[in-house]
């Protein structure tokens, strides 16, 4: 039944329904309500799980690494500096092929320290081998968590999944949320029972030193898994979820008013909301505009190149920047469109503009979003709403 719940709380309640065995908890604004809620569920007997109050995020990720390797379903969550501190462990978890599920409540990265929302943090582990989902709203964040466990633990996948939600905007916001029953989640999500684990009955060695003759195949295998097994299972799991839970789940991406569009916005996360509002307003003035909302960022769905190649103009809007280059999403989209073009032989390429907005929690207004629609010039990484007064020279 529908409840009006805070984002972090609803994620924690959803995770509890997924029956994690070991949870690592470490505080960092703005994700802390998730471990807090999980702790209270355990304290009140509503969740039978072991929670470990570790002494750092590096240890949080390491703790669930160990528990997962012992054959137990695990969970943890973090933000910003915590994710960066976990970075080497996330690469390690993916390399060890452990199906760890985590939530990253996206927040700006220091310095300067800033506790508000943007998506620079997750970009630090974009290449780690972890599957990356982005939720637009709280309901989707919960639904993606349930699907994340199923996907991660599939014997043909066995890779970590990180569900990303916008810090404060979604973690601290309240929305109407439908929490499924335990029976329904149990039906959808089979228990986690891996073949290879730390078990004295069958002693195995994990984490050996692997030399040049073998190492490259381990990376190829993860890449191949991402582009094949994961790619094929995401839509299937989303479909199965939609049927069983009665709520639409999109899998790779959501297409909003793309059928007859001429110009299309592309983004991920909660920024999609104000863009949809802008599209609705422009549609009232018969503007042929739509939105392609990316939900699965890694593996990066190759069809995005095909979908976007038929438009005249593409406006990529994102809350991260690879300093000295462009936004992460922008560079992936241009690559994907160009790859599709050179393989399909289409001659006319869309104009693709990249905009950086909302860093460090700065709000992005509908006007600013709409103003991009009429912008003629093409940019690869234009910052929106920069306040010149804050800029100067070193001396």
């Amino acid at each position, binding site marked *: 039944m529908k409840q009006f719940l805070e984002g972090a709380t609803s994620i924690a309640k959803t995770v509890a329904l997924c029956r994690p*065995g*070991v949870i*690592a908890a470490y505080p960092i604004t703005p994700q802390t309500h998730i471990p807090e809620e999980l702790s209270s569920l355990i304290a009140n007997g509503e969740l039978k*799980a*072991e929670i*470990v*109050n*570790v*002494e*750092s995020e*590096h*240890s*949080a990720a*390491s*703790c*669930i*690494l*160990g*528990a*997962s*390797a*012992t*054959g*137990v379903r*695990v969970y943890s969550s973090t933000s910003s500096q915590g994710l960066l501190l976990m970075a*080497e*462990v996330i690469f*390690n978890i993916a390399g*060890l092929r452990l199906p760890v599920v985590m939530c990253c409540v996206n927040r700006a990265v220091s310095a300067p320290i800033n506790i508000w929302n943007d998506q620079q943090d997750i970009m630090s582990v974009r290449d780690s081998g972890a599957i990356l989902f982005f939720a637009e709203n709280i309901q989707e964040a919960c639904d993606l968590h349930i699907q994340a466990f199923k996907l991660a633990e599939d014997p043909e996948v066995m890779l970590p999944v990180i569900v990303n939600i916008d810090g404060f905007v979604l973690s601290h916001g309240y929305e109407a949320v439908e929490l499924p029953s335990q029976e329904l989640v149990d039906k959808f999500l089979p228990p986690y029972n891996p073949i290879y684990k*730390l*078990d*004295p009955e*069958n*002693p*195995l*060695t*994990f*984490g*050996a*030193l*692997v*030399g040049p003759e*073998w190492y490259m195949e381990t990376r190829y295998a993860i890449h191949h898994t991402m582009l094949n097994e994961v790619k094929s299972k995401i839509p299937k799991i989303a479909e199965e979820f939609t049927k069983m839970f009665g709520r639409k789940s999109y899998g790779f991406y959501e297409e909003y008013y793309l059928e007859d569009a001429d110009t299309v916005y592309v983004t991920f996360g909660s920024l999609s909301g104000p863009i949809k509002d802008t599209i609705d307003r422009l549609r009232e003035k018969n503007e042929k505009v739509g939105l392609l909302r990316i939900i699965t960022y890694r593996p990066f769905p190759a069809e995005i190149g095909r979908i976007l190649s038929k438009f005249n103009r593409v406006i990529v809007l994102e809350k991260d920047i690879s300093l000295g280059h462009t936004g992460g999403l922008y560079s992936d989209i241009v690559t994907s469109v160009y790859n599709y073009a050179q393989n399909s032989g289409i001659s006319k390429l869309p104009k693709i503009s990249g905009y950086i907005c909302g860093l460090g929690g700065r709000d992005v207004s509908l006007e600013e979003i709409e103003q991009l629609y009429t912008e003629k010039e093409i940019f690869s990484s234009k910052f929106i709403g920069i306040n010149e007064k804050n800029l100067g020279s070193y001396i």
Partner: protein
Amino acid sequence: MIDEKILFTPGHTACAGCGQSLAARLVIDAAGPNTIVVNNTGCLEVFSTGYPYTSWRVPFIHSLFENAAAVASGIEKALKYLGKTDVNVIAQAGDGGFADIGFQAFSGLWERGHNVLSICYDNEAYMNTGIQRSGTSPVGANTGTSPVGRNSYGNITWKKNLIDIALAHRCSYIATATICYPVDLQNKVKKAIKIKGAKFIYIFAPCPLGWGYDPSLSIKIAELAVETGLFPLIEYENGVLTKVKKLKELKPIEEFLKLQKRFQHLFQEENKHLLQIWEDFIKVNVEKYQILEKSN
């Protein structure tokens, strides 16, 4: 053939005469097959699990350089969740992996009182990367990053005291051990794994390559460390000192130092003052642990 009971088998690529490979085998043979070992990156991990070879006959996991203690806490909790609390969990590392980069995770493991046996193999420097000073390198040790030179007598600080740090964490059992008393070492492991909560065994693990002595002398060097009062053999149970290996008299520290290349320069005139630092440290040990038998 190699007997089944050996849980750390030959075929590893440690240097001949390695104190740490001996200690590691003694530990796991004593802990027994119902044990999961978590190991930080370091010599022991590198020379015992170079793919496609592993010397381990028990479940073993290596993740990173500084997280064995955190990985172990996850394993212990997973075993608890699975109702398999009879399985022993060992979190182990060399001195760098334990006292420096992995220190925070071990502090957390102890503070939370996980039912895990922590083991530090102290060879007094980062050996896997080719002998660089660590937080437990003694004063004067000549290493790659604390070299002896015109303006340097080698390492300038004294060893981080892991025993007192463990005491401060209220570990339920703390003991020191070394390879020249293998049975004592194994008895302490067997005792520790039966005790609930955070257990810590601190093992003096001589390293022929890093310390500069002939591989056959690893046992001799360990013996001298004990007999000079440098490395007291002690046991604490719930914070109370319950056992100390007594000595009739102390051998001069020079006997220990002169066998090792890393200390040769301490015998030069301008470095003689450093020997005093060693003697002072030993005096503290002798006093604190009452090492010398009272001649009544």
